[in-house]
């Protein structure tokens, strides 16, 4: 095992609470009707290409990417399009979605290999791999849902040196990546190889927090057993510290390089891809299988049976909560994702999508916003900030709408990890104000650049 590394600046250590770590992935049965949102990635929503009454097959394209930062959407089931309408998704807004009345049997679209057989031989070349990733609608499945093919297209004049796999899973509670690493180890490693081939590098590093020893040992063992097959792939254990899985922090920890302020990770020669996305890329490239399902962790301290489920997109979250033992008493916060960066949702029946890594249920005692008191200038937020910012200052100037100052104080470098707010003894909602300041400052910068 390689010696444990970490990023240097800031960081916090919230309670890990990996309650579902020992729960094997269960296939989750689909309901009669699934609701597939067309906007499942960071960029523009896909354009619907089916209409009411159409029969769709599992894996068939139903929405095409619109614009550069956008991803295709495929049908997660076989059935008939009941309607194309809007649905309240995890953001709380009504967004366009395709409603599909499902047939009992999956009928896979043409060309998709639906077997569990491990295919180790990578037949496609770099360009074909990227095209396949784009075609299959693969996005960053850690939560940000940035289209992966955009990441893999190394810009002119830049050179990639490493593929870094983000297996840190530094968010408390979440275990979906951990389970995937344990149960689909070989497929995942082939995925890493595909990525290395896609960006023409001979080094792939899997960055993983040291609280997942089981996965680290299994990966090391598998790589050693198949030395020729997994040449160039390395497992790098990382200190259990939040936000170890922040893209910039991960690059710093693994390579010692710092992504320059305002620049993309490729400046350091690194392309970072999430575990679930890597597995999805394996399925896309080797099996021609588009992204229609993912692992979702359903968890919470009062949840009876926390678990990890393989879920087709469009399955409403409340069915998953039922499967995890039902909605416990006194739940006041439902979070899509982990507790540090996840978004709270107002209803439980939102459809699961590509970015739904977890559904976290919390009671008022766990998630209550405590009384805000005066800032005592302790500086703990600045000590905790992994980006070297001064959250107390950004909070104050954003509150005063002084967006010249927010820009000067690097507000745009904030990665919104929430370490500052987590650590603040006065319970000040630092990140809320910083997000506001970031949005305003970003708009001003964009307007200026357009002139």
């Amino acid at each position, binding site marked *: 095992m390689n010696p444990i590394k970490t990023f240097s*600046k800031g960081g*916090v250590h*919230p*309670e890990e609470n990996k309650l579902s770590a020992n729960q094997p992935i269960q296939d989750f049965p689909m309901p009669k009707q699934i609701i597939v949102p067309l906007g499942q990635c960071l960029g523009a929503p896909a354009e619907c290409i089916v209409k009411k009454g159409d029969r769709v097959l599992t894996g068939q394209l139903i929405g095409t990417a619109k614009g550069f930062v956008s991803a295709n959407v495929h049908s997660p089931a076989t059935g008939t399009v009941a309607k194309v309408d809007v649905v309240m998704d995890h953001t*709380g807004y009504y967004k366009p979605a395709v409603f599909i009345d499902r047939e009992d049997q999956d009928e896979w679209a043409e060309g998709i290999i639906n077997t569990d057989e491990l295919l180790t031989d990578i037949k496609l070349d770099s360009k074909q791999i990227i095209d396949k990733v784009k075609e299959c609608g693969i996005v960053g499945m850690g939560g940000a849902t940035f289209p992966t093919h955009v990441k893999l297209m190394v810009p002119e004049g830049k050179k990639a040196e490493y593929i870094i796999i983000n297996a840190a899973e530094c968010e*408390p509670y979440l275990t979906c990546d951990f389970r995937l690493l344990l149960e689909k180890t070989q497929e995942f490693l082939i995925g890493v190889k595909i990525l290395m081939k896609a960006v023409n590098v001979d080094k792939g590093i899997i960055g993983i927090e040291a609280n997942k020893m089981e996965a680290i040992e299994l990966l090391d063992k598998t790589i050693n057993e198949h030395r020729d097959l997994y040449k160039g792939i390395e497992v790098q254990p990382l200190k259990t510290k939040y936000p170890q899985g922040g893209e910039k922090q991960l690059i*710093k920890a693994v390579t010692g390089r*710092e*992504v*320059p*302020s*305002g620049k993309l990770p490729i400046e350091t020669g690194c392309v970072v891809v999430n575990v679930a996305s890597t597995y999805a890329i394996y399925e896309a490239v080797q099996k021609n299988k588009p992204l229609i399902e993912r692992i979702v962790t359903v968890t919470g301290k009062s949840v009876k049976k926390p678990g990890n489920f393989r879920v087709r997109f469009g399955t409403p979250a409340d069915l998953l909560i039922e499967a995890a033992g039902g909605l416990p008493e006194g*739940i*006041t*916060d*439902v*979070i899509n994702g982990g*507790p*540090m*960066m*996840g*978004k*709270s*949702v*107002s*209803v*439980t029946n939102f459809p699961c999508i590509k970015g739904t890594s977890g559904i*976290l249920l*919390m009671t008022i005692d*766990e*998630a209550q*916003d*405590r009384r805000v*008191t*005066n*800032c*005592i*200038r*302790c*500086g*703990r937020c*600045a000590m905790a900030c*992994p*980006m*070297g*910012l*001064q959250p107390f200052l950004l909070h104050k100037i954003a509150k005063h709408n002084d967006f010249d100052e927010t820009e000067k104080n*690097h507000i745009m*470098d904030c990665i*919104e990890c*929430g370490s500052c*707010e*987590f*650590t*603040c*003894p*006065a*319970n000040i*909602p630092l*990140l809320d104000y910083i997000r506001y300041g970031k949005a305003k400052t970003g708009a001003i910068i964009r307007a200026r650049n357009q002139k």
Partner: protein
Amino acid sequence: MNKYTISGSPHVHSSENTQKIMYRVLLALVPALLVAIYYFGWYALRLTLVSVAACMLTEWLIQKFLIKGPLTINDGSAALTGLLLAFNVPANLPIWMVIVGSIIAIGVGKMAFGGLGKNPFNPALVGRVFMLVSFPTAMTTWPQAQPIFEKGFFADAVTGPTPLGILKEAGVGSLAEAGDMQFLDMILGNRGGAFGEVCAIALLIGAIYLLCRKVIDIWTPLSILLTVFVFTGICYLVDPTQYIAPLYHLVYGGLILGAFFMATDMVTSPMTIRGKILFGFGIGVITVVIRLWGAYPEGVSFAILIMNALTPLINKAFKPQVFGVVKPSKK
């Protein structure tokens, strides 16, 4: 149909809060208080109770009738100011003076600026310095330590000079002659002085607790102590007949109390490590200058207040290094 709370991430919070921090500092001062009661008996206890009560009452009245905001006296900061104020005055000080000092400390030093977190100066030191310049005689008439098991709990105070006072008045030679000025007595607290500062051992026990609980960090105190040690050490090496050995400077006055409990006040000290080191260096230099060449025998309070005033500038000058930003190289 909103059923669940919508709030921005993060959705979990560390268990830390301001109240806990303040109560931990109070707890850390308990050993020193017990030693003080042992050496100064009833006077120390009475003074502490009056000072803490006066500070809390002042804050309560101002918060209720002038600021009209939520009551803050249970956050522990007023009690802490009261305790630190008591620790910095002679045990036999008339009660009314302590009350005046408390009102100034909380009223002028803290609430006038808007309460906790907004005061530029350490409130306890504001109160103390106000008393020092207003009641110079009473504030420099120090009772001697007399263990309660020998003299009784209510024994009358016997006044006498502090080690630094002797040093100022009569020079190094006299200190050597005064037989009871032993180093061991100094660190155990068996000497004259403000009753909270006398026992270095008790204060250090509290300081270690605070360091372990991460309430304070080591940089400010370390920087202060090292600066004083090195500065007075150089003076001692230059002329041992004129200046005493540096180790005595660390334990004679209120340096330990100041370095670990007053200079580390979060509100009034810098936020970054480099800032804290500079802050401590400034306090150390000013303390030594006042002690060796100033009119007062002790200068820790003034040094901390002066550096408190510079804290905003230090914060501005020593910002944390932003990730991914390379400093423009000097040409």
